[in-house]
């Protein structure tokens, strides 16, 4: 580094303006990456989920089984990471619960608006899909950010709510994913929530 520094210094001495530009350039790069990291690491606004599922939703289909509900915005780039992480979690605790995916659809839009790779992937995970017109269902559950997961135990009580990705669109282990996995395995955990990284379902305030 010292050597490189000496070479650079030599060139820079020759051209102070160039040195200044390069310095600003490197600083800008650092700042840009910091902003990007910060964006990546910024979760959606915290939400308070409903403690029980609305009974008219008919969930669980088999009484006495835990129900996992995930609110997704089908066009949010982060949704695929969330679905992917959900599949990985469910694979670690198979048949531990019923899965219901609420796919947001703006009011007035046809159901085809949600079609794309994401519903297919959801179906692969064995979950049922419910079209959430205008986000009303997610709103009733108190979910505001795409990717938010809510787990209701066999008693129908909310036992977990939060995101299962470590950051925006990030696949891999995350705090929420770990808690959810342990809960689905019937293990105890002192955590019941995690930040959610994704687009807003409810629209801009």
């Amino acid at each position, binding site marked *: 580094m010292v050597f490189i520094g000496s*070479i650079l210094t030599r060139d820079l001495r020759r051209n102070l303006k160039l040195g200044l530009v390069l310095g600003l350039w490197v600083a800008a790069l650092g700042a840009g990456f910091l902003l*990007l990291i910060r964006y990546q690491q910024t979760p959606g606004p915290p939400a308070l989920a409903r403690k029980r599922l609305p009974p008219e939703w008919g969930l669980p289909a088999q009484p006495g089984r835990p129900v996992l509900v995930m609110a997704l915005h089908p066009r949010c780039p982060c949704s695929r990471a969330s679905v992917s992480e959900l599949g990985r979690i469910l694979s670690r605790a198979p048949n531990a619960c019923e899965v219901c995916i609420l796919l947001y659809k703006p009011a007035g839009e046809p159901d085809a608006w949600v079609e794309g790779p994401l519903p297919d992937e959801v179906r692969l995970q064995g979950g049922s899909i419910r079209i959430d017109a205008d986000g009303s269902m997610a709103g009733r559950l108190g979910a505001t950010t795409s990717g938010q997961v809510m787990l209701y135990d066999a008693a129908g009580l909310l036992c977990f709510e939060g995101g299962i990705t470590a950051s925006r669109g990030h696949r891999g282990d995350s705090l929420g994913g770990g808690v959810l996995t342990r809960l689905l395995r019937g293990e105890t955990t002192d955590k019941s929530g995690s930040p959610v990284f994704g687009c807003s379902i*409810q629209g801009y305030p």
Partner: protein
Amino acid sequence: MIASSPGILTVSSDAIRPNAVPAVDPPASASVTDLFRRSEQSVYRQGDRLFLVLLGLQWIAGIVLALTASPRSWAGASSQVHTHVYAAIFLGGLCCWVPMALCFWRPGEVVTRHAVAIGQTGFSALLIHLTMSRIETHFHVFGSLAFLACYRDWRVLATATAVVALDHVVRGIWFPLSVYGVLTASPWRVVEHAAWVVFEDIVLVWSCRVSRREMWRICEEQYRNACLRDGLEVKVQERTRELQAEIAERQRTETAIRASEERYRAVVESAPEFINTIDREGRILFVNRVLPGFEKAHVLGSPIYNYIAADSVERVRQLVAEVFESGEVRTYEVSGAGLHGVPAWYASTLGPIKTDGRVTSAILIAADITARKLAEEELLNAKETADAGNRAKSEFLATMSHEIRTPMNGVIGFTNLLLDTPLSPDQHEFATTIRSSGQSLLAIINDILDFSKIEANKLELENCPYALRPVIEEAAELMSREAEKKGLEIVLHQDQDTPDNLIGDPGRVRQILLNLLSNAIKFTEQGHVFVNVSVDSGSSLPSIRVSVSDTGIGIPADKQASLFQKFTQADASTTRRFGGTGLGLAISLRLAERMGGRMGFESTSGKGSTFWFTLCRPVEAPVPAGLPRADGLRGVRVIIVDDLEVNRRVLREQLKLWGVPHDWAASGAEALQKLRGAHTAGQPFHVALLDYLMPEMDGEMLGREMQRDPALRSTAMIMLTSGSQRGDAQRLLAAGFSAYLTKPVVRPALLLEAISRAANLVAPARPAAVRPSVAQPPVPPGAPPVHRRVLLVEDNRTNQLLAELFLKKLNCTVDLASDGREAIGMVRQLPYDCIFMDCQMPEMDGFEATLEIRRLGADRRVPIIALTADVMAADRERCIAAGMDDYISKPLHLDDLRRALERWAMPGAMGAR
């Protein structure tokens, strides 16, 4: 010198151009390091160009990727451009703009490629972000390092690695999820990431190093090639310069040759002569000009013989062949074609033209000499006319000479007779004057006759072998009396190595010598006349130089030029003072030249002159038989006493040649001193050679003094004198002299004999009674003449009387006949002892009469002596041819008649014949 390998190590890659070395064209002065730097710079620039494109493509690809993967972010039914798209545009742009700008404006600089490294690794980080930290995107890092290795600069890899490391460390610490995809990164994972990067770095650095070594090797090769090329180029340049110089020189030479050729062409074409070149067959190859009426084109190629007179063609053809065969120049004159068809004469020179030493053609230069030929013809005619006139003049002179000599014969002859009769002193003086005047007149006539004959080219010379020394001695003897009268001495000297045998006319040699001696004596009042004979060193041909030197008045320088002209003496007063016709030298000069020799003189006014002439055709002869040997003179010591240095020198050289020890003295007193000194020293002189005429004490006085001195009495004395009188010999013998020799002719044999005899006289056992024999001086014959009967045939009465008187004096009985016919009748009647026959007579001349007498005298041949005034050799030969035995020139002299009688009419002479 090839520079050592650079000490820096750089990472190399073959991604762009394996072993890529730019095609450099290094200057001859560049070193390997320079070449390597230039190659390195080229690689850097190539890398910059590569990344200029690659960074741009990555930026675009990032934007496309962002637009594809996360084009928008949503909020319910609303959406907006996703942050990733902005990040791809601006952050990605931030990664590439600055490096691209540097690549574009500052390619090859260190800062550029390091900025490229930073930007490229920035793209890796951005990609990882945009792909939501997909682990596969880490390969972009490896790919980036591989691309950066194109620079073959390990420092760029270090920069990139440093940025990657910094990114991983920073994010690994504070945002591990963004780089490792986990919430908390294990240190081993950091190590693992780092290990892969380091591994790739090692491989790439090794590759760079290998590549740079290859670059270096190629540069070395290039350098060697460049050196070879430079060397070759230098040689090419040198050779080019040489060739240019040669070309320039050749051009100059060609220019000079052209100029020279133009000059020669101008000379040739403006020459008045006809200049041709012809081949072996005589065909004309070139001609500078042609006669009017001829066409040059027609003349070229035609034989030269077409333009030559027919009777000369074969001769010219032969000359052409000779020139081509011998390569030598031939000149000739030939008649040929001329102006207006009139034949002209040409003086032609035919020379060879050689190529590589071989005669390939000939040059013929012909000058029109028609005018000269005509002039020559006119001259020839004029000459013939002049010759005819000259002949007539010569014949007239010869006739006149004869006619004058005949009466002069009478005048001188009768004057001689008159002087033998008793006369009063006055009468004797008158008669003597008449005789000397007659002799002078006769000499003048003889000179005129000689000169006229020479001028008329009528002089005929004899061509017989003769000995030179007797001729010179005779001449000197003849002139010695004249010299003696003036108190002069004639000294003869002849180099021992001078050939004495010659072929020529001894009479004319004598005539020249007599003339020179006569002049020398005439113009010398005191001193001596020195005759020297030597080999002529100034001539290329073997010849002998005879010179006559005197100590006379000399010749003024302004008179010398005209000295050899006829009738010329130094000045008119000379003629008045010394007499003479002034023809002598002119005649002598012409005689010498006619005999093939030369004649000249050197003179200093007031000191004397030296006249010389050369004689050619000496005959190689061994040592003359008469050359005396001096073996008997060993131990004899001789002293020479003479006041004249030349005399002493001649004698000294002679004695030196004989090996006789000698000394000399210039006076009697000095001689006595040396004689006495030698006696006292115990080495007395045995012989003394004494000159008679010496100042203060002459030779006789010295001899008598020596006889009076007992110490010197034993020295034999030999007297050398220029003059002799009757009774001298007896007187000197009585005075004690053992020998008496006359000068100028002191013959070596005689001198040797005299010294030998004198030396014997002084030998210890010398018999007192023995007297030396003395060389007798020339004395008139004293014996009474024998009686003879002679017939004198002479038509001229005066000559008859004169001859009769002379013959009667010689005790002859004389019968007279007036012409040849009468003589024949008398011969028929009486047996004569001798006939003196005049040649030119009326009725029957001497020649016819002689023929008739010869026809008659079959039993006994009577000697017939011609009496003729003609002195030409042709006349003499005519006499001999007619049967005569001898001839006597008129005017008659008593001695001539006596010698003829003694020779031809002596008793027994007829019998011997």
